[in-house]
């Protein structure tokens, strides 16, 4: 595999704490990865990169709403570049806080950027920070983020968030997400059956058990679970026994690399 012709940008800001794991995961698959702070991002040309990742964390202390401040800062600093980046079909991945950022910036679920968000990641219905392993089912495996999986495959990946309850502004937006097959991952029971909101399998009360969605064109994806925390076998709960070489999160990064290799 010769993925080192691909470049990824992992953005960070005050409160980001999953940037390093994300970089390690991408580099393990051969992608050249740079971590860049928001304060120096303006010196960068985004179009040099094939992938931008907004990693997990608690950017700006989750003040106002999780992801809101970073989301708006991204718009203020990078809007034009980001719109071009998306339009060219390059990839953006938002994990956990990164998903909240993409939602608040209006990058998801539409195409490009809209000033007003049409989705929200609200406080968990348990009113608690939920840190646990969950099972998610692949609903659409024809996107750059899911090609290395089967449709209907169940992945085990952990979540860690207090604001992850996926909401849409209207029933119509939810229906559109379904119609366009933008729902990539749904929380399910360990056997793959629908969770139907059942706690703790649906850890936050998300509408329609939604764990991750992509944009209409499919090149922007946001998800609450942390694939970078389930990348190596030694990160799994069975680490002290005989863990497999890789966790299920690996498949998401592998999909990205496979996609880049076949289309770029």
């Amino acid at each position: 595999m010769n993925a080192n012709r691909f470049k990824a940008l992992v953005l960070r800001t005050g409160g980001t704490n999953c940037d390093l794991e994300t970089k390690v995961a991408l580099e393990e698959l051969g992608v050249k990865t740079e971590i860049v702070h928001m304060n120096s991002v303006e010196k960068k040309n985004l179009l040099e990169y094939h992938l931008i990742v907004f990693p997990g964390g608690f950017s700006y202390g989750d003040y106002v709403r999780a992801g809101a401040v970073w989301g708006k800062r991204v718009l203020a600093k990078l809007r034009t570049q980001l719109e071009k980046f998306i339009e060219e079909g390059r990839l953006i991945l938002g994990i956990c806080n990164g998903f909240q950022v993409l939602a608040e910036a209006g990058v998801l679920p539409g195409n490009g950027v809209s000033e007003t968000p049409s989705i929200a990641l609200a406080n968990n219905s348990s009113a608690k920070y939920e840190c646990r392993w969950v099972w998610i089912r692949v609903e659409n495996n024809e996107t750059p983020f899911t090609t290395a999986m089967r449709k209907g495959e169940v992945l085990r990946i952990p979540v860690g968030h207090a604001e992850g309850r996926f909401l849409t502004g209207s029933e119509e937006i939810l229906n559109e997400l379904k119609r366009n097959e933008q729902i990539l991952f749904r929380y399910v029971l360990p056997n793959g059956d629908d969770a139907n909101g059942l706690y703790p399998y649906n850890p936050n009360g998300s509408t329609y058990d939604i764990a991750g969605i992509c944009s209409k064109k499919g090149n922007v994806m946001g998800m609450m679970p942390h694939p970078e925390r389930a990348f190596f076998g030694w990160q799994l709960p069975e680490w002290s026994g005989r863990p497999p070489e890789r966790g299920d999160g690996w498949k998401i990064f592998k999909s990205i690399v496979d996609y880049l290799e076949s289309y770029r």
Partner: protein
Amino acid sequence: MRMKVEVRLKPGHFDPEGDVTAKSLRDLGFPVSTVKVGKVYILEVEVSDRKEALKLAEDMCKKLLANPVKDDYSIEVLSP
């Protein structure tokens, strides 16, 4: 001009923080049926025209302070 912006969940929206707070207050013996939790922002805005200040605050709500998917907001001028 000093202003107050209050952001709270839209009516009918599930408010887990409010529910937990209500339960805790009931545990202490208070006759509380519901609690709704919101956020209050006190702003010093550098304009002197009341109308203009209200418009600015409205804009702030739309752009940052509230997410229209789940939040309502109200704006008040506290002092000139």
